[in-house]
């Protein structure tokens, strides 16, 4: 086993150990009630890792069998990520309840457009024309990553545009998920285009290092307490008088 494989194993195991820490944090702080889908996602990722790690260690399991297991578990993971995004969206709607209907409609339109764009890109975009299983899965994942990344970016843009504030925990989740989806988009695009398998270990390494970074980000956001008090600049009495005077001027010109 060369140093590259040792590194790959290290960055494969470590994020899942950290996911265990994250799950404990979520449980002990009662945050699993606030973000149940994210909690299920974290638990699922740990279980998925245990299964794949066991399959990797069993000598009788062939590479092809392992690959099928990997992509089958990945498919469910992607579905759960959509659930987490929905959870993030619902949390934002709670902040902006006066514009719920308008926001819900516009976001549904964006979600539908992105999904259609992802599917069209998967069907028509040029790439490796071989009909291998791995290429097919990469093409589908590329489309889904595009939809997830685009949707999260749209949420961030919309919140900035409307001046909505994210809860610390929810922003952390969205940030981590956005990074994973964006890196997945690039990686699966390269995978779908290149038929050579020489790049695969390096792409896997990038993906696992990204995953490690995102899990660390989630832990940082979950572990840090939500701001208790508003971080507002103090306003003096004089300034308040000027402010009120200006409003009077507006109302009675």
């Amino acid at each position, binding site marked *: 086993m060369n140093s590259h494989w040792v590194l790959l194993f290290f960055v494969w195991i470590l994020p899942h150990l950290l996911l265990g820490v994250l799950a404990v944090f979520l449980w002990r702080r009662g945050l699993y009630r606030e973000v149940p889908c994210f909690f299920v996602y974290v638990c699922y990722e740990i279980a998925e890792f245990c299964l794949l790690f066991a399959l990797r260690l069993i000598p009788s399991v062939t590479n092809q069998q392992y690959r099928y297991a990997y992509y089958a578990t990945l498919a469910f993971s992607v579905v759960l990520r959509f659930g987490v995004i929905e959870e993030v969206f619902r949390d934002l709607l709670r902040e902006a309840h006066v*514009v719920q209907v308008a926001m819900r409609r516009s976001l549904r339109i964006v979600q539908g457009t992105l999904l259609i764009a992802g599917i069209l890109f998967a069907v028509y975009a*040029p790439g490796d024309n071989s009909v291998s299983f791995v290429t097919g899965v990469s093409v589908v994942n590329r489309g889904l990553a595009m939809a997830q990344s685009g949707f999260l970016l749209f949420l*961030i843009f919309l919140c900035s545009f409307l*001046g909505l504030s994210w809860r610390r925990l929810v922003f952390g989740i969205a940030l981590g998920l956005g990074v994973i989806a964006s890196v997945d988009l*690039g990686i699966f*695009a390269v995978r779908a285009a290149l038929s050579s398998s020489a790049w695969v270990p390096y792409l896997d390494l990038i993906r696992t290092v990204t995953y490690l970074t995102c899990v660390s980000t989630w832990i940082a956001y979950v572990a840090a307490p939500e701001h208790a008090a508003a971080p507002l600049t103090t*306003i003096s009495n004089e300034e308040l008088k000027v402010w009120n005077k200006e409003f009077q001027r*507006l109302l009675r010109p």
Partner: protein
Amino acid sequence: MEQGISTFAPAMIATWSLVAVSLLALGTLAYSAIRRRTRQVDLKREMEAFQAPDVEAFRNLVDPAEEDYLRDQLPPARFRSLKRQRTWAALVYTREVGRAARALTMVGHAQKRSADPAIQATGVQYADDALRLRLGAVQASFCLAAEFVLPGLRTRTVLALIDRYRQSAETLLQPGRSAGMEMPGSKGA
């Protein structure tokens, strides 16, 4: 060989375009995370932003009576040109109102996280009013853009926006509201 190159090139262009999009998305996420960490709601600055729009000048620009007068007095070509200029100026005002509303939303959301229930309640009110105002500004911008393209068109959305802006200001001036403006650490209002 040539056929190979011709199919390879679009494939690689599409692939590297997606990689570029992915990097751009990562950059945007990093920027928003850094901005969130470093940004503080500067109440004074946000209030100044809310004071900025001159409501009367804005109302004058979209006044239907004024528009009727101009339509009667000017030749059609001159009227269309002037209407476009006025609409453009109204668009600038609408953008300012939108910015002011966004500033107030941020103040409201920051207040909602306060430990003091009174400030929290004020924050909820500010945030809700400001959000409605912000959406109204977006809607008004679309209507004004349509009026800019078709000067004969007339919409009342902008007048409704101005009225809403006034209402927001009145809400802020209600007795007891200013108490909510007192921030942690201030000496009292």
